[in-house]
């Protein structure tokens, strides 16, 4: 029998990017909050610049619950399974994947909220790709702006504004929507290589700008400025310059004495009462089973686990999984069209051994609907991103661009000369949901607790593939303008498990096609809130985390202000 604990106001499942943010406005509002986290606290001493451990072996020193539940994948309901990943792309810890993420902290652009209506208006309804279930968001960028602002300041985001209250500043992104004020910190500095790329973009008539980063560019909130030492990708920050929720919003919430953090707590199911309201969650810790009752449950794990916890939480009121009487849990799933990079070889050293993936230069000319699609065969676009970051094993594993064999003395001579002369661009593109891309429970593969893992049935569609080729050409053009001597384009793969997963519990006013309402609360379970990219219906052409965090803040803020109605 589970040990029943004292009832709390709010239980948050997962203290990562989303739950770690939501805890702060709730605690400040005086609510009694408990956060259940499967991982542990990690300290700066855990964050050695060790490529083998961090990048090759996927953080084996941390609690890796996620590695026990890696989703399976198939391209379609009739396709065979793809090879299963060996390492889950996300991690468990207080702070979650914000511990080791790149920290790129973008706001979506205005078009991303209105893909359907804007496409219809400019090009006609026939340009919405066939089979897509895309909807406009229930609100526009203006509605989310105050929450973006709150999160940027509470976390500490560095960046160059491009549009303050309608006034365009060409040093920033001229395509961004209006923001109320500048970033709390100036952008991270450029490197020699990013300056070279910025100059080449200007030659092409584009508007390059430094991207926004949840990394301190100067001392902020008691944390020191970034040391640019590298090892930021899949690495934690040994001086706490990366604005992970573990060093920002979570400790701030703890200081209010209204947040209790329970680590190594593995949530298994969400319980409902006979009226179909959420009653609390069951979790395991140290070999014991607990039931944590709460007036409100906020589900804040990653996309796959959000969907899985709903689907395995079956009851008389919800025989097909919690909040799934409408059959929408797991639908409208997509993973970001962020593969298919372009790699360039330069005739000189770039000296990108130091720096971080968030220290880069972006071009937004080809993102969203910032260019005319009248004569093109796709909608949406891509953000072009190059940055300063290199590690020795990855450097040695470089492509030989067809100029050398893959081993032996000739290979050795090639990498000796070229290990620091290549660069790979990160190209994030608009991605849409489709009728036949979805998540469900795998019928046979289970985790060690005998719960089924998530099965992804999804593949890129024609719009994704055409867009990907178009963006690769723009990136190749940029590299050539900067003096590259060889270019390689990696083909677009398929929609396997990823760090940029979206949908599965989509947000929208229509309860027939969405799981949560415009405030992030379930259409079917009024005291169940869902946080994370699982509520997002479009991806935009940029990293999801800041949007996830702004939405989490907004849901928590709404909960605090409407406590009596919701409970």
């Amino acid at each position, binding site marked *: 029998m589970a040990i029943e604990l004292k009832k709390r106001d709010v239980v948050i499942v997962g203290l990562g990017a989303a739950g770690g943010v939501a805890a702060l406005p709730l605690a400040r509002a005086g609510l009694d909050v408990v956060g259940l986290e499967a991982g542990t606290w990690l300290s700066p001493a855990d964050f050695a610049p060790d490529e*083998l451990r961090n990048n090759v072996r996927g953080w084996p020193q941390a609690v890796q619950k996620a590695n026990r539940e890696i989703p399976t994948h198939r391209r379609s309901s009739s396709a065979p399974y793809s090879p299963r990943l060996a390492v889950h792309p996300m991690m468990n810890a207080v702070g979650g994947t914000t511990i080791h993420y790149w920290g790129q902290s973008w706001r979506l652009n205005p078009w991303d909220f209105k893909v359907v209506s804007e496409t219809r208006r400019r090009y006609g309804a026939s340009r919405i790709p066939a089979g897509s279930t895309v909807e406009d968001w229930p609100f526009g960028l203006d509605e989310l702006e105050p929450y973006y602002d709150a999160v940027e300041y509470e976390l500490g985001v560095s960046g160059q504004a491009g549009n303050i209250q309608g006034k365009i500043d060409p040093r920033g992104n001229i395509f961004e929507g209006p923001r109320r004020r500048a970033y709390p910190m100036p952008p991270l500095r450029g490197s*020699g290589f990013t300056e070279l790329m910025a100059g080449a973009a200007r030659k092409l008539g584009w508007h390059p700008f430094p991207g926004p980063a949840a990394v301190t560019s100067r001392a902020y909130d008691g944390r020191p400025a970034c*040391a640019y030492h590298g*090892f930021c990708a899949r690495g934690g920050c040994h001086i706490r310059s990366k604005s992970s929720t573990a060093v920002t919003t979570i400790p701030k919430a703890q200081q209010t004495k209204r947040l209790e953090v329970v680590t190594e707590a593995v949530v298994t199911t969400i319980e409902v009462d006979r009226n179909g309201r959420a009653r609390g969650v069951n979790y395991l810790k140290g070999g014991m089973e607990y039931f944590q009752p709460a007036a409100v449950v906020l589900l804040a794990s990653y996309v796959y686990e959000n969907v899985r916890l709903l689907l395995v939480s079956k009851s008389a009121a919800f025989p097909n999984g919690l909040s799934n009487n409408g059959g929408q849990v797991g639908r409208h799933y997509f993973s970001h069209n962020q593969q298919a990079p372009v790699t360039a070889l330069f005739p000189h050293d770039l000296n990108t051994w130091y720096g971080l993936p968030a220290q880069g230069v972006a071009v937004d000319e080809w993102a969203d609907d910032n260019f005319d699609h009248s004569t093109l065969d796709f909608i949406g676009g891509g953000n072009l991103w190059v940055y300063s970051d290199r590690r020795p094993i990855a450097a040695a594993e470089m492509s030989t661009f067809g100029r050398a064999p893959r081993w032996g003395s000739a290979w050795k001579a090639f990498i000796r000369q070229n290990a620091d002369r290549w660069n790979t661009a990160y190209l994030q593109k608009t991605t849409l949901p489709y009728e036949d891309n979805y998540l469900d429970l795998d019928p046979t593969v289970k985790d060690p607790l005998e719960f089924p893992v998530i099965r992804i049935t999804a593949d890129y569609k024609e719009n994704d593939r055409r867009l990907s080729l178009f963006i690769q050409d723009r990136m190749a053009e940029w590299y050539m303008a900067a003096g590259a001597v060889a270019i390689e384009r990696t083909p677009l793969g398929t929609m396997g498990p990823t760090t940029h997963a979206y949908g599965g519990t989509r947000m929208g006013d229509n309860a027939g096609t969405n799981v949560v309402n415009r405030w992030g609360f379930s259409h079917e379970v009024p005291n169940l809130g869902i946080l994370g990219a699982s509520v997002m219906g479009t991806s935009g052409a940029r990293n999801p985390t800041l949007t996830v965090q702004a939405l989490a803040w907004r849901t928590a803020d709404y909960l605090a202000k409407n406590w009596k109605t919701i409970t």
Partner: protein
Amino acid sequence: MVGDTHDDAAGERGLSRRELIKRTVGFGAGALVAGSAQIPREPLETLTTAEAATLDAIAARLIPTDEHGPGAIEARATRYIDRALGGALAGAREAYRSGLADVDARARASKGAPFAQLPAADQDAILTEMEGTPFFSLVRTHTIQGTFGDPYYGGNANFAGWDLIRYPGVRLAATADDQRMDSRPARLRRSAYDHAMFAKRRPSRARLGPIEEPWRSS
């Protein structure tokens, strides 16, 4: 310095680079392995002596010692793999057992001698034939890890791999000057775990085994 790398420093310090190259170039990998046997070595942890000899010989052809300096042998890539096969790469132990046996079987069948004793040209012919196999990819991947990874794990001895690709080394802060395209930051020769703040939290191989399961009682 991490204790693991002291022995290499002692063993190879006496050899000038020119001497090292003279000893190893032009003699083929068989001679190379014989030559490197002069370096004091700690006992193997996972591989058999015969397996280690074959693996050394393969690594010596993948990243050879040549006019561009030391290769996988000097970097002690085999030591990295030997240790990792008892820990983080334990899942690959069987692939090494059968894969190395297969390499030797091919060598005996086509050339009448174990792989490690063949001239370099014959070894290269066998490796070329194996290039598309999963085992070749596995060994190549691990040889690169053992040559260019942090020396804490037993490879990249004397920072041979980092010197090869002109990596200026792990530092805990990089200045704006260090990031200029024309700057050449001074080469730092330290493992991440030579830094005091990380020394206490070295990943132990015991913890590289089964992943922690917080739902179970400890």
